[in-house]
């Protein structure tokens, strides 16, 4: 019984939030990885692209709420999501046309792209704050919990409760569907295969008659859609605040690099690795220890490896360790 209670504590405070946060990171990292493997640069503007998508979703949700349109138990933002994705795709394509395509023609070095993407980051950041302002926006509605802690206790008779927020459930389900779609696209369709070929060997792909501009366009379409999705899901789960997306950029890069930049499977696994290590390392094991150890050994302190204040710092440390020990990531190789 005690060990079951301990498991529920871990499930409630680590596993469920970790799965949701990991899915958000994985979707973000997938976008970073796509840009990296086809356009060959680390896109510092990706966080702001996510923020832009979430902003559109917030604005549309407000409008829908004003029209009394909703999804009942599910958050209204799900209706707004497709439009947010389209708008973000449009922004990504426009940015490519106006900014990045010039450097592609010039065949600039990847470090030039990197610095250009910082300029894009500033511009997007300004645009977003100009439209919606820097304040914190909550746009979640519908039913708050899929499973309430008290209901779980009643159902199982355990001392500890397990709560699952609706947003967490939605995040995980949407992430699974989207990831499945992406892999189907990359592995089964002709366009997907041409993308993989292009990322694998640019010259060979060109010789085989693959149109590079089309590949780039599709990459930005996928990246924009993923960014809007990741940004909106993160905003739904926490709350929408423009500047958090810049600090989210590092865990996302960390996920992409830990998994092996350019590798989609790696990006997804990297997302969960980062999310779970953040939570496991900053989790206070006091309650678990109280259940698992004899009463006399019960700990007085929080039994925490690192204070929760350092949560995001954990991902940077993992990033550094991976960069130093195995810069190619867990799943080596630069292939989509």
């Amino acid at each position, binding site marked *: 019984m005690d060990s079951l209670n301990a498991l529920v504590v871990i499930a409630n405070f680590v596993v469920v939030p970790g799965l949701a946060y990991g899915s958000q990171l994985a979707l973000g990292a997938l976008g970073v990885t796509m840009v990296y493997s086809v356009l060959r640069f680390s896109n510092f503007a990706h966080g702001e692209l996510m923020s832009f998508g979430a902003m559109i979703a917030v604005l549309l949700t407000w409008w829908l709420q004003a029209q009394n349109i909703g999804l009942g138990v599910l958050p209204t933002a799900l209706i707004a999501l497709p439009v947010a994705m389209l708008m973000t795709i449009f922004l990504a394509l426009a940015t490519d046309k106006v900014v990045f395509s010039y450097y592609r023609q010039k065949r600039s070095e990847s470090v030039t792209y990197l*610095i250009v993407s910082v*300029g894009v980051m500033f511009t997007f*950041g300004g645009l977003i704050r100009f439209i919606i302002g820097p304040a914190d926006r909550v746009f979640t509605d519908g039913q708050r919990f899929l499973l309430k802690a008290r209901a779980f206790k009643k159902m199982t008779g355990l001392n500890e409760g397990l709560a699952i927020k609706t947003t967490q459930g939605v995040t995980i389900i949407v992430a699974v569907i989207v990831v499945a779609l992406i892999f189907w696209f990359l592995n089964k369709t002709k366009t997907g295969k041409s993308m993989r070929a292009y990322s694998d060997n640019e010259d060979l792909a060109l010789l085989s008659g693959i149109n590079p501009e089309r590949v780039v366009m599709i990459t930005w379409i996928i990246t924009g859609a993923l960014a809007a999705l990741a940004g909106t899901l993160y905003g739904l789960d926490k709350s929408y605040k423009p500047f958090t997306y810049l600090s989210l950029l590092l865990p996302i890069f*960390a996920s992409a690099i830990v998994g092996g930049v350019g590798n989609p499977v790696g990006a997804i696994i990297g997302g969960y690795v980062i999310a779970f290590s953040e939570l496991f390392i900053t989790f206070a094991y006091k309650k678990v220890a109280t259940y698992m150890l004899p009463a006399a050994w019960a700990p007085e302190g929080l039994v925490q490896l690192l204070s929760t204040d350092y949560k995001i*710092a954990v991902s940077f440390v993992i990033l*550094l360790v991976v960069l130093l020990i195995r810069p190619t990531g867990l799943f080596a190789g630069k292939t989509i």
Partner: protein
Amino acid sequence: MLPQSTHTSFEKKRIPVLFGIMAVLFVLVGQLQSWNLSLAILNLCLISAIMTLGANIQWGYAGIVNFGIMGFAALGGLAGVLVSMPPVQAGWQAGGMGLLGGGVIIVLTSVLAVFVWGRIKHITRWRYWMMTAVILSGYLVMRAIVDPAVEAIESIESAKAGHIGGLNLPILVSWVVGGIFAAGAAYVIGRISLGLRSDYLAIATLGISEIVIYVLKNEDWLARGVKNVNGLPRPVPYEIDLQAEQWVINLASRLDTDVPEMSSIIVKLTYAGLFTIVLLMLFWLFETALRSPWGRMMRAIRDNEVAANAMGKHVTAKHLQVFVLGSAVIGLAGAMLTTLDGQFTPASYLPLRFTFLIWIMVIVGGSGNNFGSILGGFVIWFFWIESEPLGLWLMDVITAPLSETSALRGHLLASAAHMRLMTMGLIMLLMLRFAPQGLIPETKR
């Protein structure tokens, strides 16, 4: 294409003309807004210019992408606290031994880790797990010793102190110490990460600088964390003392301003003088370095690493050298900033303001040119501050046809303050596209 002759004559005049325009802008702000504001902007321009010089020696001379400027500036700021504040004796008595013990454990663990690594390097399967075990046990012992000490220190007069204080030395000493702190950190970071590809280096340095800020925000025993340290000693007289001085009163009446205004202007001018001395010294140093064989070697490495390597230059060692040097300059500027503010506020260190804005300064000014760095620091900081009133004015003009009560007009006016981010981004993108060399391009030597 312009004829070659006009082109070169413009080149020669470019530096004085651009700096002249900058001077006119300061006079305009002084006349139209206030001289106090103009000097306040000037002081931060000087500090920005020094940071930009530091970043330029890394990117412009050597092609190293350092996105960790914020962390080095914050370490310099920390030096301001640790050097100039009076020590908190009670804090040292309560937890000094614990902290020192923790420091000893960290050193011992590192030595042990290096020693063990030498022994187990060949065991490919288990070496990382064994290393983790060594480091983790060292960490746990350290925490066991340090945690009670930290708690003891933080509980002493937590409203006012709650940290270990400093050395009670003049704050000008902290400028050197800040440089040393940043150089030390840069040495460790550089040794670890300079071998990485440029975009990984960018991400790694950005991550490390975030970790530095996290530590400064959360380790209250060090510099009070987000509770901030206020009232740092100043290297210049206080306004209130100046106002009692007869010569200040006389000067104020002769220049037709009031005494408080005058005293504040004198204080700002003194700061500006101190900063200018530092800037000129660094500028001279860097110009000399750039002209020397060392500078030629750096450019050779930047332009073709493989060839430089083949000529017998130790590329990684030189990269480390220039990384440490540039970071030291950024740390120095960070300490100067804390001195000017008179307080240390870890929460104010944001990557946009401290890392990426400095990068825009380097790019816009002209990477690889020290004049360009200074100009970039001046121009960008000037517009970073002035884009707000300018944006407001512009919005007012644009939205004038709309009625006073229009919601759109209200929103646009309220959002004008956020124009600066977009302006900076657009300036950077336009420069990169149409004048990638910057305002003052690198001179061919």
